[in-house]
């Protein structure tokens, strides 16, 4: 497999290798897209449940009492910025800039991701302090079924990033690692897409209708 970057498309890296079909980058990336779309449906179903349960607060605290838009805005910005930095890392890799600069942007992304998670966990603890625990009502169950699901994905992405950093330090930028990073970047962007849905539907939708 050759590591030359695609000319027109910064994240897909086509190039054919006869004989070894399962290393065909185009195929691997496409496979990951298919996985993400399956995950999208997974999220979509949980979103649908959330929508049907907006009214089911059962006398417990609802969006009006629990949501902190300042923290939400900070989380949104952190995640959005990390989407940019992971993109810069991709471009750095594509154009074969130094490994150090690539790693720098990956680490920045990781830190932003961890920052996002910290804020989110802080938010949850604040909610819990006001009685906003998933055991309280159907609405809160739905909230805690959806938002932490996204958080779990982010944690998984962070772990993935960590493993990649270790691997790069160990063996350098092998083609297979580049391919893995491309998939991670896609995953990270995808999580930002889901977050748009979360702040629009879960927070704003919940706040207006709840």
């Amino acid at each position, binding site marked *: 497999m050759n590591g030359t970057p695609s000319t027109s498309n910064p994240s*897909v890296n086509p190039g054919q290798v006869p004989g070894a079909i399962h290393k065909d980058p185009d195929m691997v990336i496409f496979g990951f897209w298919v996985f993400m779309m399956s995950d999208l*449906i997974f999220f979509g179903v949980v*979103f*649908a449940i959330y929508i049907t349960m907006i009214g089911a607060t059962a006398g417990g605290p609802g969006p009006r009492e629990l949501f902190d838009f300042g923290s939400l805005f900070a989380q949104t910005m952190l995640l959005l910025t990390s989407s*940019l930095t992971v*993109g810069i890392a991709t471009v750095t890799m594509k154009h074969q800039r130094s490994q150090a600069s690539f790693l720098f942007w990956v680490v920045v992304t990781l830190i932003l991701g961890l920052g996002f998670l910290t804020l989110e966990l802080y938010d949850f603890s604040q909610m819990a302090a006001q009685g906003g625990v998933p055991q309280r009502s159907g609405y809160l169950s739905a909230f805690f079924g959806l938002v932490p699901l996204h958080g779990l994905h982010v944690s998984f992405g962070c772990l993935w990033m960590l493993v990649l950093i270790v691997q790069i330090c160990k063996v350098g930028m092998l083609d297979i690692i580049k391919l893995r990073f491309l998939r991670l970047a896609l995953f990270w962007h995808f999580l930002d897409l889901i977050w748009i849905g979360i*702040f629009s539907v879960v927070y704003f939708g919940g706040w207006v209708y709840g």
Partner: protein
Amino acid sequence: MANKSGYAAHLRTYLTGYVLSVVLTIAAFWAVLAVGRENKSVLILVGLLGVAQLAVQLKCFLNVTTQKEGRDNLALVLFSTLILLIIVVGTAWIMGNLAVRMHTTM
């Protein structure tokens, strides 16, 4: 064409996407906080801003294009969106209707 595929051009794509996303996000937050929960139609605006941001990120970050080499991805995304809409809209419709029909006597 060479201009469009250089390092700087690629960076520019991401930066454009970022700036647009930030603007759209702030717009959404501003709209909700300024209008408030009394006027529920603000959600339509939030929805439109969200869809716009999805489109921006799909284009600039995820590089979904209508070009030939990305056709498979585009088709995939469109089909998934169709299924997603069927599921979410269908569920909201059915469960909403059921909720109305089951609590009318209360």
